[in-house]
Each structure stands twice: as C-alpha cells, then as structure tokens.
C-alpha cells in the first residue's frame, strides 16, 4: 500500500472543506453548485479508497451511483438557476431573499 489510509481521509476531508468554503463564500449560484460537487467528490474519495482497503467493491459501486446522481442533481440545479436568472436577471444566490423571518 503506497500511502497510509489516513492520507486519503485527510485528502477527502480537505476537499470537503474546500467545497464547504466555496459554498459559504461564493454568491454565484453556479459556483455554489460546483462547490457542492467538490464536496460530493470528497465523499467519493473515501468510498473508493476504502473500498480498496476493505477489499470489497461496495464503495466503488456506490461511487458510480453517486456520480450519476450528481449529474442528475446538476441537471435540476441548472434548470432552477436558469429560471432564477430569468426572474432576477442574475445568478447571485443572495438576491433571492424576499421571503424571510
């Protein structure tokens, strides 16, 4: 085994945090979406890496499912962002804040 398992964990955690940082700081809806995808892939890293570690294919298979679902999610998300753009002439997620309290 080339690298210790902790490394994968740290990598995935780092990726997760990067994604989260993006979510918190980017106001552009697309960037938000991309950041979420990063976080998804952080989970995928875990799944794939530990699939190897545990010696079963469950994780890898699941990662494939996740990738497919992520695509579906993006499809829906882009649709919503499009109508957002149409309504607000912008893709700034903080603009759509009429409902509150």
């Amino acid at each position, binding site marked *: 085994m080339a690298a210790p398992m902790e490394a994968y964990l740290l990598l995935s955690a780092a990726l997760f945090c990067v994604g989260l940082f993006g979510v918190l700081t980017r106001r552009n809806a697309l960037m938000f979406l991309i950041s979420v995808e990063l976080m998804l892939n952080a989970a995928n890293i875990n799944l794939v890496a530990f699939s190897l570690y545990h010696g079963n294919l469950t994780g890898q298979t699941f990662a494939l499912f996740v990738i497919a679902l992520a695509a579906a999610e993006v499809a829906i998300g882009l649709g919503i962002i499009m109508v*957002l753009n149409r309504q607000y002439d912008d893709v700034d997620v903080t603009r759509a804040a009429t*409902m509150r309290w």
Partner: protein
Amino acid sequence: MTYQLAPWTAIAPMLVLVITAMVLYIVDSIYPEREHPQLLSGISVAGTVTAMAIAIWYLAAGTGQHGGEIVLFWDQLVVDGMALFFTVIFTAVASLVIVASYDYVRAQPHQGEYYSLLLLATTGMALMASANSLVMVFIALELASLPSYALVSYLKRNRGSVEAGLKYFLLGALSSTIFLYGISLVYVETGVLQLTAIAGTVGEIENVAILGFGVVLLILGFAFKTASVPFHFWAPEAYEGAPTPISAFISSASKAAGFVIAFRVLIEAFPYEVLLELGIDWVLMIQVIAVATMLLGNFAAAVQENVKRMLAYSSIGHAGYALIGLAALTNPGGTNDLVLAAAMMHLLVYGFMNTGAFLFVALGEHWGVGRTFEDYNGLATQAPIACVAVTVVLLSLAGLPVGGGFLSKYVLFMGAVSAGFWWLAAVGAVVSALSLFYYARLLKAIWIESPPSTRVVDEYPVGLYTAIVLAALLTVVLLPAFFAVAETAQIAAVDLFA
C-alpha cells in the same frame, strides 16, 4: 389453501407508482400541445390510490410483519410493516395532493410533468421506506428530492416559487453531500453499507471519532429531510414559496420519508446499546435536536403574519414532536416500541392534518383572499364547509380531540414519559399550548371576525374541496379508528427492534 404471492410483489406499490409515472409521460407525449387536466390527474390519483390500497391490503394481510420481513435484491430492499405503513402515508398524502392539484394547476402548462414528478417523488419516498442499505437510502433520497426541487419551482414565472426552489435546491444539495460524506465515513470504518451488516461490524471499529462524525453527519442529513433544527432553514421559504399543494406534499410526505430513513438507519444500523458503549450517544443528539426543533418551530410560528408561513413553522414544530420517537429511546428499552410506534402514528395522522391545512391555504389562494390572517376574516360565512374542515384539522394539529392528532400527540408524550423523559413531554406540552394559540388565530379570523365586504367567493373548486374535506374526514375518523393505526404501527415498531 392460501395462495402465496411471489416475493417481488411486495414492492408492488412502488411498481405501481413508477409505472403510473411512466404512463403519464406517455399520455402527455401523445397530446404534447394540449393539457388534459382530468385525464392526467385521474391517472395519477388512480395510481396513488392503487398503490395505497395494495399497501393497506398488505398491512391487513400481515405481509412482511410479525418478524417475516421480505428482503429483495440481495438485502438492498426490505418490505416490512414500517415500509408499508409509511407507503400508506406517502400515497395517501400524494392522492390528496393530486386531487387538490387538479384545480391548482389546471391553468398551468406542463401538467404532465407536474404529475409525473409528483409520482416519482412518491416513488422515491416509498423506496426510502424500503431502503435497507445506505446506498439505497441515498439513491431513494435523491429520487425523492430531485423531483421535489423541480416541483417547488414549478411556477417558474412566480418569483416566490423560484426563490423557494433555489433555496430548497441549494441547501438540499449541500445537505445531501453532507449526508453522503457521513455515509462515506461510516463506510470508512465498517466497510459495509447494508444496514444490518453495519450493525454487525459497528462494535469492532477502530476509530470511534470517524464513525461518530459519520453518525452525526447522517443525523444532520435526516434533519434536513425532516426539516429539523439546525437543517430546517430551507423549510419556511420552500413551504411558503412553493405551489401550495406541493408545500403540503413536502411538509407531510417528504417529512415522513425523512423520518422513516432516520428510524430504519439509526435503529437497524446503529444499535443504541452498542453505540452508547462506543461513546456515540445519538439519542442524546436527537434529544437536543428535538427540543430545539419543537421550540424554534412553535415559537416562530406564534408570531407569523402569513398563514402559510405559520403552517411552515408549525410543520417544523411537528417534526420536533415526531423526533420524540427517537429521542425517547432508552437502553435497555422497556417501551422503545411504544415510543417509536407513537412517532409513526403521529406522522400518519399528521400527514392528513397538515395536508388539509395547507390545502385550505391553497383554497384561499384560489379565491385570492390574501396571505395574512386578517385576509381570512369571516371566511366561515362564505365557505362554511371548508372552514369546518380546516377547523377540524387545525384543532387536531393543536392536539385537541376532534381528530386522531389528539391521540397521536398524547401517545407521543406518553411514550416520552414512559421512557422517563418527562421533560421532553413537558417541552412538548408547553409548545403544544403555544401551538393552540397560533392555530386559534386562524380559527379566530375565520369564525369570529366579520368578513370584509370586498371579498367575493363565488366558485367552489371541486378538487380542492374534495381533498380538504377528505383530509378532515380522515382526521376525524382516525380518532375512533385510532386503534387500527396504533396496532399496525406497534407491530411495525416491534419488528424493527427485533
């Protein structure tokens, strides 16, 4: 003598739902240019009612119950009392919502998509109820969620709808990644994803912290789906902005779906007695969440001016009640099955009550009465039947004995007390009284205030009326007939713990 159906037929409700969705696509593509509201809603409601009937039949026949759960696809799916019970909730709520939607979306384009998305979401929920591994849980969750995002922003020319859809989607995507990350952490430690398999290995894991992180993230994922604190932020806006039948659907069925996976995953995969030993006291965490949810939902609901938003917050509050079902579990669990069953009963009755309440708002929107409490003044003089119905559901939501909500709420409190968590019940009691206050505000507007002279109610939409009256009627019937719900739920709960 008795003819045994093949095991796969156990998922017949799901199959019916998904087939109906497909049929809708086909029908819609036959007439791409014209809308056929009667046809589309008719097909949809036929599908959901059939699915519901099958689920009820299975429940009555004892399919998958009393320890005889049916597992399919190499343990990925399980059909037991719990799955069927929740399938009934989802399909029943979906039926009411579809009936009501007939009037609501009649003038809208893309009705075929609307109904089929609704059915697919329902399918996803039914799948959630049957999911027996974290893989299936995640897939089913996404199947339920993705159509919901689209449905919330269905009114694409309505800013509120779009805003609601955006928030729902963004926070939903974020939550599902958090949930998925939780799954991955669990997998890191256990190397399996099938629920009972996790339970089998969870005792021998190496690193408690990673598993603990995983469990916390999973629970937060459930919190999103059930609209519980701290992942509730999307709910008020999504419920307020969405087309109202969809608000009803998400706040009733989708919430119940969140609970069913929470129940199954936490109880099946992470046995409390084992995790408590590891230092992962997830019941305590649920307790924190439950109390926060009850308090936040109800206190915020008490001060709303907008009726729909009040219902949204109250729906958060009800999630808090239902969380008692997990929060009052004990080790050793003398009355765990009672506690869990209580939450199931409450979710069922709540499905009808809450749907009824939201649909009443939909009716109000239909008449253009406005959004605030004052706008509903004196509606009883113009629409007495709908007002009686909403009175029934609101009082039942508040826990007064006009409907099953009374018994389910008190059985929940009873469950909490039975486990010794009287303080949980006490918090519930306090906010329940508060909830009476804000539900009564709507009643006051409807019954006590005098109507404005400008409002005209001259048309009585059949679909909405039918749905509201049905919801109210079912709520009432579930008071004397509560025994059926209670006994079924308890059987399911006992099985889950077995």
